């Protein structure tokens, strides 16, 4: 069982170290990416993976957005075969954690051009890692605005110059962009 420091009184601590961990799991509960930011919480990889398994078992069926587990508040969201989690102390403003989760999900979604699924994510793992790094630095929320996170993660969208793309590719990407602008 994890214990998050003893808190006297019930007020929130005036700290910036709000995020205790973030992770992305696949639909078998295996880790794709995970970062834990507090040395006192889940210090070893073994404990982390056990926690992730437990978390996944508790969340993969019930789509309930938030769960309290082992002294941590975990907010989550899933799409196709991916599960996104943000963890904070059980004594923390849940809505701040929710805003971090939104930032994580939205940035990944933009990076993957809305194809939020495992295969695409693994193809773009480098960019997703950078997004992770831009959202949270050592437990401090660095940025929560998806557009600026994606900008900072040096998105490799145009890595093939337009001239070298086939007509089909250009059309495909234009179609996709149009689709998403209509869906919004």
């Amino acid at each position: 069982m994890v214990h998050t420091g003893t808190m006297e009184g019930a007020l929130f601590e005036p700290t910036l170290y709000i995020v205790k961990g973030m992770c992305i799991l696949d639909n078998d509960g295996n880790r794709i990416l995970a970062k834990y930011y507090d040395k006192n919480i889940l210090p070893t990889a073994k404990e982390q993976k056990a926690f992730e398994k437990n978390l996944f078992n508790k969340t993969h069926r019930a789509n309930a957005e938030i769960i309290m587990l082992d002294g941590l508040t975990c907010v989550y969201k899933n799409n196709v075969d991916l599960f996104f989690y943000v963890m904070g102390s059980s004594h923390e403003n849940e809505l701040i954690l929710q805003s971090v989760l939104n930032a994580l999900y939205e940035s990944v979604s933009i990076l993957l051009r809305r194809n939020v699924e495992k295969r695409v994510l693994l193809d773009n793992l480098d960019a997703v890692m950078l997004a992770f790094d831009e959202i949270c630095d050592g437990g401090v929320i660095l940025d929560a605005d998806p557009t600026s996170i994606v900008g900072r993660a040096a998105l490799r969208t145009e890595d093939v110059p337009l001239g070298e793309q086939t007509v089909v590719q250009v059309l495909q990407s234009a179609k996709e962009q149009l689709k998403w602008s209509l869906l919004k």
Partner: protein
Amino acid sequence: MSSFRRDKKEEEDSGASVFQNLDKTTLLQESRYFNSTPVNPRKCIHILTKIIYLLNQGEKLTTQEATDMFFATTKLFQSKDVMLRRLVYLCIKELSSMAQDVIIVTSSLTKDMTGKEDLYRAAAIRALCSITDSSMLQAIERYMKQAIVDKNPAVSSAALVSALHLSATVPDLVRRWVNDAQEAIMSDNIMVSYHALAVVAGARKNDRLSTVKLVTKLARSPLRSPYALCLLVRHAAKLAEEDQSEASEPYLEFIESCLRHKSEIVVYEAAHAIVNLRKSARDLAQAVSVLQIFCGSSKATLRLAGARTLAQLTSKHPNAVAVCAVDLENLISDPNRSVATLAVTTLLATGAESSIDRLMKQISSFMSEISDEFKIVVVRAIRRLCSKYPRKHQSLASFLAGMLREEGGVQYKTAIADTIIALVEENPDAKETGLAHLCEFIEDCEHTSLAVRILHILGREGPKARQPSRYIRYIYNRVILESGPVRAAAVSAVARFGASREELLPNIRVLLSRCQLDDDDEVRDRAIFYSAILDSNDRQLIEDYIINVSVPNPVLLEKALSDHIAIQPDEPFNISTIPTTEEQNESEDVPLQVEISNQPVVSREELYSEQLKIVPGIEKLGPIFKTCEPIDLTEPETEYRVRCVKHIFTRHLILQFECLNTLNDQILEKVHIRLDPAPGYVILGEVACEKLPYDKQGSVFCVLKFPTNPIETLGTFGATLEFVVRDCDSTTGLPDAGEGYADTYPLEEVEIGCADQFRTRAPTDEWESSWERGATAAEACDTFGLSQNDVNEAAIAVCKHLGLPKAAIGGDAIKEIRGGGLWREGTPMLVRARLVSGQGAVTMQLTVRSPREDIATLLLAAVG
């Protein structure tokens, strides 16, 4: 169609396979590719991604492997590819804790952080600050200050967040950047403003006055960032909590104004703060109505936030929560089980007796779906119900028993067992059913500690039941089936049945004699020991060694024994001088909270015994008899705060003055206490506190000898704090040159009362017979008129004066206080007080019986 499906499957596999079966040896070899020129960014990015992925999966590298990989990575600084460079930074951060000589990249990173490429700068600052040490920091300080006020928000945020991380190790350096950070608070970028506020407030965290200034100033300015506002609300709330006077009004007004903010994050932050700060229900109304709206939200997180905060209110302001009953009712069937649990438990805590059955039915429908934390919340709610509605015990107990049968961790099971035990102890009607449930539980309990506790309870409560013999079967089954510790506990429990119920004694003798052949030493010893005592047929012996065994505090016992061996190994050791472990009867009312904090219960004696070791000759005073609760000798919020702790020994008294200097521009030296002792007391020595820096607690000890005549021990001591003041720099804490000057500070008087010298206890069931036996001892008796009008108040006041727990009070019209205790020299005493109210006044008859007459009169003198 089927071929399409296979294609898809293969496709999936190929995407994943790159990252499957990665192996660090292969990667180490691949990382050699980084040395080739010119760098191929695409290929290197791929390898780096694999390295970071592997590290992220929890793979451990040796220092050598990490260092090799690190140095290979540094070669990639040649490439200008943005993506590659960023991954290099990431890799540096990941490897910095494992590899050696990481500071080799300092110059490359410094170049990037001061360069023109914005995409490099921010990330380079963060990477640099994660590898650098304080000596290197001096060199980049200038760049950091520039970066903090940089117009690119990413750069500014990176510098501020790095400053925040660094302030844990080099606070003084970071403090020099505060002016720049202050400028950044007003930035248009919401994150920069948030990070800057944290750096500024962090640098001032020990300086209340400047925190007050900061909060007051910012509360008036329009902060745009919701995150920064949340942080400001937290600081304001903290200030308001520390200062309960009128002066905290502006903070509360500011927090209330945040309730009208457009961002939900800020609104919730403010509502949460108010709920935890406001004392009266009227002030809460606004916050509660906001939470009420949250409860109706479509987002589960908001509903949970609302329900959780309302649940916190239940213990303090049940009426304020009661108005939300309708909203909470709607949440009972919430798809998020955490929300539903909180709603049900809150309703249980605030609702009427009639609604309990319905709510319990609701909750049992989803009990299996919620996590242990929430199950514990439910158990706590039920526990509160048990004492609130004793008539409902039947349904509550069967619900608890059902929960016991389900799967669950030891903490959860302990919580349930605790609740049933409380039920058994508090509610006589529930005793039999409760015990039966416990019996059933130990049949199948995998937690040794819990089984041992329950056996202890069965041994204590079982003999008082109507049919004690039915429990013996359950207990004796443990002897056959369980591990050593459980068997030993079962033997003790069985013995207690034999001791309390004559009619069972022959059977118990047989059971105990069977245990005398056990494999386990402890079990055998106990069986033989109890058989011998039961065979003696000496009521007093059985009473003292089986039924009412006093348990000495183990830590203090160990210390006393080692002191005893060191000083007087030839003399017999008196175990009754060791303070007994106090059973915690008055459990505090824990609010409904989903947070588990395990604080070990340490007695005051244990807490202070470490500190007392510095008093020379302390071991000659013998074991400590009692440590009293600290008493404040100064008003709160004064320059120096002094608390006095009285340590009572057999013939001596140590006064410990805990001093705290709250002025950050002063260091106190040669701090000592001038005592003006009451007549009869002799000062034997004093241990002064040589140096008392700002905000560090220091202690002065005075050792005194008690007067030989117990009556003379009641008295008051005058006390003055004497010290030498030296001014010092408020930030560094270094004293200014010069001698300093002597000063004194008057303290309130220290009173030595009668309660200080007794270890008292509430009456046990056998109090009556002890009292009768004490009839032959010396008795002192007197009648007093008390100033209180109400007999209840009077009884509580008398208990407090005599140091007895409230449980000692009994009776209705005529209040009777019964109790007993041990004087510091080891003399026992029994006390009985009868209080009657008549004609607006309360009269009390106080009788004390003790082998020593002077002790009996001492108690009377203390009341008079």
